[in-house]
């Protein structure tokens, strides 16, 4: 007869076996299944060696404590990606790097900072990423992210080598007027990794898992916008805040020496909006004193038109509007790979 009250060996063994059994069922075997039944999406780029080193910096600096990398299948996570994350997305990034470390815990549990699943699309500018790591509050005043000064070096401008990445730090933020801030290898690796974070599009014909819709006040789900009815008007100011303001700043005055102002800029106030549409779709490298602007073709035609109109009629600017149809036409020329059927 089993008597747990008097038989210590049985008590401990049953507790041990019970726990091992439950753990196998709920942790080890599902984990093994998830590990073995996984493959990269077609066309998903393998991580380069530099990106892999950047991921190691990401783990080492504890970025995981504040940043998630998972787009959940709920409405509010639409901000962070075009589709919910799936196991294949982590095929290359969640591999054990070496004998000393475990697989990086990339999904995270806190969003003290934004989700980074698609940050390479949202914030694809290398100049912005560097400056943001060097001093986050230089580009985003309300940010509470730490400064990562130890990933950079301040050197005399004569000591800058041709392959150094020189940060576009405004002159008044430097210790000596003659010095330059350059990125260390670790910073370059980390930025390469961050910019590589992009959701791979699903193969043609595959429909992504739907986001769980937010029901209306009556409890019935709101009909999705794609159902033919007029889509709700896009708020240009929201697009500006979440996409453009990072570099061009919330007041559109830019950062002198780093990112150009949009307020009062000739290019913005040009009568013909076409040039602005082209820049947003195709990116821009025409201003040598500033970092290059990456393409924003990941935004929809409506979003691009709305944000352009918002910028052209605010911040003291005054210029005629454009429309989604114009953006659509230009997209076919400048970014044909993003045209949606």
């Amino acid at each position, binding site marked *: 007869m089993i008597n*747990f*009250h008097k038989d*210590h060996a049985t*008590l*401990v063994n049953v*507790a041990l076996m*019970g*726990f091992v059994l*439950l*753990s196998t069922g*709920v*942790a*080890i075997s599902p*984990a*093994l299944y*998830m*590990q073995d039944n*996984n493959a990269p999406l077609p066309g998903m780029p393998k991580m380069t060696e530099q990106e892999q080193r950047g991921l190691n910096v990401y*783990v*080492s*600096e*504890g*970025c*995981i*404590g*504040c940043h998630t990398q*998972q787009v*959940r*299948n*709920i*409405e*509010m996570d639409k901000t962070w990606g075009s589709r919910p994350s799936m*196991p294949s*997305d*982590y095929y290359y990034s*969640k*591999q054990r790097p070496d004998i*000393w*470390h*475990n*697989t*990086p*815990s990339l*999904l*995270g*549990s*806190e969003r003290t900072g*934004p989700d980074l699943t698609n940050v390479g699309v949202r914030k694809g500018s290398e100049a912005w990423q560097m400056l943001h790591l060097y001093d986050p*509050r230089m580009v985003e005043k*309300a940010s*509470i992210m*730490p400064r990562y000064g*130890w990933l950079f070096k301040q050197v005399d401008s004569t000591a800058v080598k041709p392959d150094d990445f020189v940060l576009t730090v405004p002159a008044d933020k430097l210790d000596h007027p003659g010095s330059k801030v350059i990125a260390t290898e670790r910073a370059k690796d980390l930025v390469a990794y961050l910019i590589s974070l992009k959701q791979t599009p699903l193969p043609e014909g595959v429909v992504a898992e739907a986001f*769980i*819709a*937010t*029901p*209306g*006040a009556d409890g019935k789900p709101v009909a999705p916008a794609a159902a033919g009815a007029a889509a709700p008007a896009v708020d240009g100011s929201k697009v500006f805040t*979440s996409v453009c303001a990072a570099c061009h700043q919330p007041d559109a005055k830019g950062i002198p020496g780093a990112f150009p102002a949009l307020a009062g800029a000739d290019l913005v106030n040009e009568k013909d909006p076409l040039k602005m549409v082209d820049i947003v779709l195709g990116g821009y490298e025409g201003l040598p004193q500033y970092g290059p602007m990456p393409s924003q073709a990941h935004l929809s035609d409506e979003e691009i038109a709305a944000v352009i109109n918002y910028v052209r009629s605010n911040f003291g600017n005054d210029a005629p509007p454009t429309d989604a149809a114009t953006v659509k036409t230009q997209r076919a020329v400048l970014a044909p790979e993003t045209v949606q059927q």
Partner: protein
Amino acid sequence: MKNLQRPTLVALALCIVQGTMAQSPKTEGWLSSPGVVGTMVLLGIVLFIAVLIIAAKVSRLIQQTKEKRDAAEGNPGATDEQQARRDAALHYRLRGDELGGTTTAFDDKALIVGATSEPNNPIVDEKIYSRARLDVPKPLQQLVIWYLAASTFWLLFGTTVGEYLGLKFIWPDLDEVAWLSFGRLRPVHTNTVFWGWASMAMIGLAYFVIARTSATKVHSYKTGWWAFGLINFSVLVGNILLMAGINNGGGEYREYVWPAMLPFALGLILTFRNFYATVKRRKIPEIYVSNWYLLAALVWTIVLTVIGYVPLYQNGLGETIIQGYYMHQGVGMWFMTFTLGLIYYYLPSSLNKPIYSYSLGVLAFWTQMLFYTMIGTHHFIFSPLPWWLQTVAIVFSMGMFIPVIAGTTNFLMTMRGSWSAIGKSYVLPFFLVGVIFYFVGSSQGSFQAFRFTQNIWHFTDFNVAHSHMTMYGIITFILWACIYALLPKMTGREPSQLLVGAHFWLAFIGLFAYTVSLMAGGTVKGIAWAEGVPFIDTVIATRGYWTWRAVGGTLMFISHWIFAWNFYVMVRQPLPLAQSPVTEPISA
């Protein structure tokens, strides 16, 4: 009371029905969502108890006034003589010297140790002093004190780091030193209070329990010292590596790389062997229920550490499943299970009576194992992990109510009838807060696992509030209760009652400010996210809550220094046994 019960029951029923099934979250009716309602009910419980005590006092006051008025009115049919006698009876009050004599008293047998007509503490109630003195073998006494000393050191270190991190939310530019950056220090805080403070204190307190309840001597003191060294070494090395930027992979509570965690695991294995051997040579046939929990917690945690660190199944999302399992079981199978074992000894012994129900303790034990193990994935609701695994986690999170209610009932029923003792003791308030938070914190965790509440609370500061409610409100408060209960009996030295009171109230008020501000801030943030507010605006909106969190955190932080001083007073210079009034021998 009846009116209050109904909505609570309805809310609970709703939770069980809707919570596990509701898959489509809506943000409009968030206030009436089962998880939110449940959480509010739980917070209400704490408030309710406070109100109940005040209401009882007010009602007694009214009753007394009424009696006086009735007495004054008199009875119209009574004669003058009857009325006079009745009035005299109503106004009868003891003079206080009825049992005294007129002769001078002399203490022939020196029964009185000290007498004063002036209390030590002019602003607080005088508490009862710890009278019984235990004759604890010297090596055991030293082992326990050193474990507790190390744990106190790690508490101070870990919460200094925590306090500093809390301030960085308000002043992100406090420093720009790699070793002190937020990302590197955050795991230093969590791992230190886990493996340094709580684990060391738990093991130290358990050494006493295991010897006492087995009526025997600890199997090997030497093994105890080896484990002491290994665990401290692990925390020290692990922290240095984390600050140097060497992190296992960012998974919470397993940030120490395996070479740093290995000594900890060895320490656990040695501790288990030692405890097991001690229980094996017990002088009584039954294994006391405390020891069930202590032995099982050690076995489970050894298994858990192995599963968490073996890499064979941890590529891709395998790691994520293990992470959810590991971080939940770290809390559930180690801290919670072990601490429950401690309560089953220290609570009844402080009240000087047996535990209410042994069977409830056993029921809670097996259900703890069954339900706790299954719910790790509730940390990854809506993630790309299999939907069925998420549902299992949610359903079993509801099952957690069984061990939690069984445990809470057992502890509260043990306290029943001794409520007046709580006001007179400086140990019992810590137990009461710990037990109430055991119920509130654990149930709140179950409500948080619902799909709707996950929708608005997950990834926000609400998580941080929950983890402090449990690791601090439950574990830390219970550990303090046990330390204050044990040490004076061991050393004969008592801390200043005023300072224990200061410790208690600063920690309690601080924790309340900390959790309530982060829960409110987390809710505001989650709803703003659901409404599509730009991310940076939600950071700005949370600032005020972070400030209140820092205020609460500072109160908690100050209380730890007071605790450290109290600890020092209790262990500095143990009183020789001969000088203690009452001595209770423990088998040697």
